[in-house]
């Protein structure tokens, strides 16, 4: 059993972690991430970049849905706004990429306020439907505002250079995505230990009590929409850099559902859970591919023929199993394991 860990100063109480062991592991993970391009091939790196983008999107959605309790099915819409803002500013207006990324985030945040205002009185399913409608509206606007968005033709993303590197592929893209992911995760963790994050949690658990505690519901719900969508917009911008071509078909409803699946599987309300969920679900299709390669007849085309169906079934199965057997999600499993380990050899 682990003992002898004492707080010696008040600053340890508000630290993200005051344990040297934890910081050691985080440092190790960061080193591993920095060395990643040299450990996996080109294909592997593409997968890792997708996973990082998913992490940003999940941490962002977690602020809105996990922490503030506002269920959003509009993730795909906000991703589209970010991706299009980035693509249009880069390609048509030739802005530098260090400006287009924050601009993509801010555009998405500004539009989220437009959606947020009429949604303020809505909760639960009603809000989910409103945000869903929003994401369809965005798709239509993109299709028909041809002067700006090139309509159904989509936009080719080119000319993204930062410090002389082409950040649309390989190492530069990976390190850019990594830096933004680290920044997003840190921002998520920091927000949850300040009055803003706590105001969100208060709104989720009991909105009348939250008001009596001095929390302005309108302000903090809009703040949740704006901050969350800012990061979703950045995730969308990164997607547009990675896939190099954006059109509306990329941002289908399934993306919003996947995003919800990620934070439910990871554990609602937890930043670490969102990260775990995003990594897990990002690599699930790859895991399935390897599984079929291993067990199936090498000449069988079953997997390649039904790849989308199999993925859909797998997502569904994962959510059902998570909700049935571990509603606290992956982070719950992690906490149990940690508790068991630190109390060992006692039972609890």
């Amino acid at each position, binding site marked *: 059993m682990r003992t002898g860990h004492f707080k010696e100063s*008040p*600053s340890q*109480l*508000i630290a993200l972690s005051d344990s040297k062991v934890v910081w050691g592991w985080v440092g190790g993970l960061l080193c591993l991430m920095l060395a990643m391009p040299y450990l996996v091939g080109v294909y592997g790196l593409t997968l890792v970049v997708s996973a990082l983008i998913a992490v940003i999107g999940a941490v962002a959605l977690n602020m809105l849905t996990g922490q503030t309790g506002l269920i959003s099915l509009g993730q795909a819409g906000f991703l589209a706004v970010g991706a299009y803002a980035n693509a249009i500013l880069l390609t048509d207006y030739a802005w530098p990429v260090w400006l287009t990324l924050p601009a993509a985030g801010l555009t998405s945040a500004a539009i989220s306020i437009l959606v947020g205002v009429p949604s303020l009185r809505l909760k639960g399913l009603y809000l989910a439907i409103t945000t869903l409608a929003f994401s369809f509206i965005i798709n239509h606007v993109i299709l028909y505002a041809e002067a700006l968005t090139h309509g159904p033709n989509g936009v080719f993303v080119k000319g993204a250079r930062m410090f002389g590197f082409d950040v649309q592929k390989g190492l530069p893209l990976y390190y850019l995505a990594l830096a933004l992911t680290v920044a997003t995760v*840190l*921002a998520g963790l*920091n*927000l949850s*230990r*300040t*009055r*803003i*994050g*706590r*105001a969100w*949690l*208060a709104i*989720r*658990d*009991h909105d*009348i*009590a*939250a*008001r*009596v*505690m*001095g*929390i*302005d*519901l309108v302000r903090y719900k809009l*703040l949740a929409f704006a*901050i969350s969508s800012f990061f979703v917009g950045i995730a969308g911008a990164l997607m547009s850099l990675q896939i190099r071509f954006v059109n509306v078909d990329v941002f289908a409803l399934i993306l919003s559902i996947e995003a919800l699946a990620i934070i439910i599987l990871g554990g609602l*309300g937890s930043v670490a859970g969102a990260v775990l969920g995003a990594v897990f679900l990002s690599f699930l299709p790859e895991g399935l591919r390897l599984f079929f390669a291993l067990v199936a007849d090498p000449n069988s085309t079953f997997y390649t023929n039904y790849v989308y169906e199999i993925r859909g079934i797998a997502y569904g199965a994962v959510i059902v199993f998570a909700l049935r057997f571990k509603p606290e999600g992956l982070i719950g499993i992690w906490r149990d394991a940690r508790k068991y380990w630190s109390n060992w050899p006692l039972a609890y």
Partner: protein
Amino acid sequence: MTALLQLEGVTKRFGGLVAVNDVSLTVERGEIYSLIGPNGAGKTTLFNLISAVLRPTSGRIVFDGQDLTQKPTYALAKLGIARTFQNLAVFKHETVINNLLVGMHAHLRSDPLSAAFFWGRARKEELKARERVEEIIEFLEIEEIRDQAVGTLSYGLQKRVELGRALAISPKLLLLDEMVSGMNLEEREDIARFILDLKDELGVTVLMVEHDMGIVMDISDHVCVVNYGRKIAEGTPTEVAADPAVIEAYLGKRRAA
């Protein structure tokens, strides 16, 4: 003594039902004032009006020289009004610490940017808030449970956390809605002790709705009795207990006669 809270002819109608009917009362600074009455008398509605959760149909509520009737609910914490709820309203998925920290909300002002970086002001004020919360935890003797999710605690402890959250507002006026209902004798005595300490050590004015006559009679300076939305008696505990209108409201006419 000067008045901290004054209600002037406050009325609240829900459609045809008059829940609070022309109630006027004055709570002096630094006293414990109890509001009692049979079930459905309108006590909780009166509380909701004072804490601006509901708006009065007519009448004025003046706190510390300011009219509360047009203030948004969230502005009251800043003025120094805190309350607890009749049916627990804790943030049940959060730890005791976080619940108390939410109470500090009105005293903190970090903006999203400094919060996201946790630099400068955000860090400094979090540190201060945390130290203040530790003081409250010590006052309420809940050190053992500070890291537990409130939803997992016993009812009595959850009530105590709710009281702590209200204290984190550093209130001038504390509204306690049936604080001790469902508590055992020991828990009730603890709460009574806390309330007296609050009044004597911190000078907090307490306005409470209470069904437990033991506590009301023991610790109140003034008692107000409401029935069917109207004030029927007011005075010191002994005066009120002897009032024929009160005895009638509680025990019925035949017994009173």
